[in-house]
């Protein structure tokens, strides 16, 4: 099979490419240039997007003896990921840019380009597995290395995308084994630090970064009853569940810590309240997709597990589709869930689908 290995310059994608080569595929390494003005050297815990990372990727490709190219997706990335990220924050939501990147860049723009250039699959270093059910339907599953599992950020993939995806690391039990394998293969990135931050935010400070895109727009910080507690210089960048940086002078009557419960862009209000008010019992979203085959009977509710953060906990839930909206009733509450986040629905280890959360409901007080 002709395979495009997306190589970020990190150890995971390098080992994934190596395994694809070893499996006998005709592999070509591609580094995605996602910034028109890439930095020269890697800083902090970002794992891609600098010239140094591109060179690391090239060194790995050379070691594997595969051709290597840098493809420019900076414009698409800006439109589909960065602009979307800013727009979501402006609207008072908390987006997941990695998910958007998978949805629109890696498994859309890159895959489409690959297919039109004669490739059959895109191979990445994501920790997840693709398998087939008894009828030959493709399924996305969690990786064996649960601590590194990235099936959450791949929940947006549809059947067509799954059929052109390869995740060679899914069956490996831990990242340590990947690093060990990279060392054995003589890959210079074997001990390169993991990346955690959002790749296009150099200092890792989202609020600070957003300041360049969103003008200062002061508003009130209020409690659930609408009483003003303080002021802020812009609602953008506040996140549901945030405790630090609220700058509320007077303590709450009950002396309890206060958290951001809701962001109201229209009135520029940031609503704060006690921790228990962050308990979310229901999630709603009209933008949902199925990962692989959809459930047979969508008129019936079904039991599942739900995860709302890339490395967050999973809680049991019941999913119902009503009026083209996915409704998720959580059997145990989740804390600090924000509109804009993605809820991924699992059946055991299988990713069944995902939705972008439009609305949440709290048992304690009204949520966003």
């Amino acid at each position, binding site marked *: 099979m002709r395979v495009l290995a997306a190589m970020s310059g990190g150890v995971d994608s390098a080992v994934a490419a190596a395994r694809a080569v070893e499996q006998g595929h005709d592999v070509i390494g591609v*580094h995605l*240039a996602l910034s*028109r003005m*890439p930095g*020269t050297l890697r800083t902090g815990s970002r794992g891609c997007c*600098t*010239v140094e990372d*591109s060179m690391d990727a*090239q060194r790995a490709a050379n070691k594997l003896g595969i*051709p290597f*190219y*840098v*493809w*420019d997706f*900076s414009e698409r990335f800006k439109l589909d990921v960065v602009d979307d990220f800013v727009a979501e924050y402006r609207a008072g939501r908390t987006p997941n840019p990695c998910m958007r990147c998978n949805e629109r860049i890696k498994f859309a723009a890159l895959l489409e*380009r690959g297919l*039109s*250039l*004669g490739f059959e699959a895109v191979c990445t270093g994501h920790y997840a597995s693709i398998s087939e059910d008894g009828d030959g339907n493709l399924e996305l599953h969690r990786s064996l290395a649960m601590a590194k599992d990235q099936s959450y950020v791949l929940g947006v993939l549809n059947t067509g995308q799954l059929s052109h995806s390869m995740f060679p690391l899914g069956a490996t039990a831990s990242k340590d084994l990947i690093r060990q394998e990279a060392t054995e293969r003589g890959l210079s990135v074997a001990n390169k630090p993991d990346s955690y931050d959002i790749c296009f935010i150099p200092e890792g400070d989202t609020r600070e970064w957003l300041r360049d895109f969103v003008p200062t727009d002061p508003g009130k910080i209020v409690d659930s009853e609408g009483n003003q507690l303080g002021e802020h210089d812009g609602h953008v960048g506040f996140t549901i569940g945030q405790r630090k940086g609220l700058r509320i002078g007077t303590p709450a009557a009950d002396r309890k810590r206060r958290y951001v419960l809701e962001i109201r862009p229209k009135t520029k209000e940031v609503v704060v309240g006690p921790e228990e008010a962050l308990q979310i019992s229901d999630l709603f979203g009209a933008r949902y997709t199925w990962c692989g085959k959809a459930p047979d009977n969508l008129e019936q509710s079904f039991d599942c597990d739900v995860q709302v953060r890339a490395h967050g906990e999973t809680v049991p839930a019941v999913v119902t589709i009503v009026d083209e909206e996915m409704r998720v009733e959580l059997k145990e509450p989740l804390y600090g869930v924000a509109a804009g986040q993605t809820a991924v629905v699992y059946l055991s280890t299988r990713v069944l689908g995902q939705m972008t959360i439009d609305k949440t409901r709290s048992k304690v007080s009204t949520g966003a």
Partner: protein
Amino acid sequence: MSVFLDHASTTALRPCAKSALNDALEVLGNPSSVHSQGRITRELLEVSRDELAKACGANRSEIIFNSGGTEGNNHAIKGIFWDRNAKDAECKIIISSRTEHHAVIDPIQWLAKNQNAVVLFVEHFANGMVDMDSLKALVKDHGQRIALISLMWVNNETGVVADINSVTEIASEFEIPVHSDAVAAFGHVPIDFQSSGLTAMTLSGHKVGAPIGVGALVVARSAKPISLVHGGGQERSLRSGTMNYSLAASFAAAAKEATLELEHETARLGALRDQLEAAVMDTVPSAIITAKGANRASYNAHFVFPGTQSDAMLFLFDQQGVCVSAGSACQAGVLGPSHVLMGMGLSELEASACVRVTLGKTSTIQDVQLFLEALEQVHPVALQATPA
């Protein structure tokens, strides 16, 4: 083995350059030393200087050996600007072109950003030739305040040959120094520094079949560009660093051979190029030959393939074993739209859809045929791979 049709990026080491290098590497000595070994290597260096001077029509004292084109351009531009500007603070205008190589544009922009230089650009005709009337107007308007004019002899992307004598004639009214980046010209078009009227001219070794890492700035005896780095002043007090007589010997050998062969090779490559262009137009009638109608160096064929993207074309050619190029890639390896084509007035879309084919000493009709066979495969796929 791949088909190499990217001789403008670098070209094969000439056997004569290789043996000159190997021979010189066997000789011990620092050309600045006063003992016998020093004298031996000094002689190697000075013979090389004679040969290179002869090859480009310069006086031997005008050859400043250096590391290559980027150093030469930086030295000429910054050095002449600094020299002139130190004598007259109002003399701070640099005239150049938007179609220059980055090794010219970037030092000029650096001067503009950091040293108050003012940059003015000449206009171009649609075929890429400099509009001499626009140059005349700029010179007339700014006269003595112009520190320097820098215009390349042959454009590295499109192959367009500039009329350097007209440039220096226009500049002579106000005795404005003219620098020319002749990296893409040397060995391909006749060059005579002394009759060109230039103050400085940049040459690079690896474009004529010497190794990468050697070049020369040809500087008129009357000029004294300020040095970029300071040290022993080994090269006419303008350039410091232990003189690399081995690379100089290799460069001189390559330059000598290239100059001797120039007439014959120009005709041979020109015929190949014409065949290639005609066949490309047969295969892809929508293709556009860049700078058609302009005076172009015979080793260069440059095309815009509307509806494609350069990086897809280059990728597909590479997959077919054909090495060609497009605009220059950024540090990260991303191929942007060609600033040269945009400087000529083409759209960003056109400037992102070009392919440059450049021939050299080792090029044969078989190479051209293999390119054409590859093009038949590549073009339809590239069209399909380009989002509408």
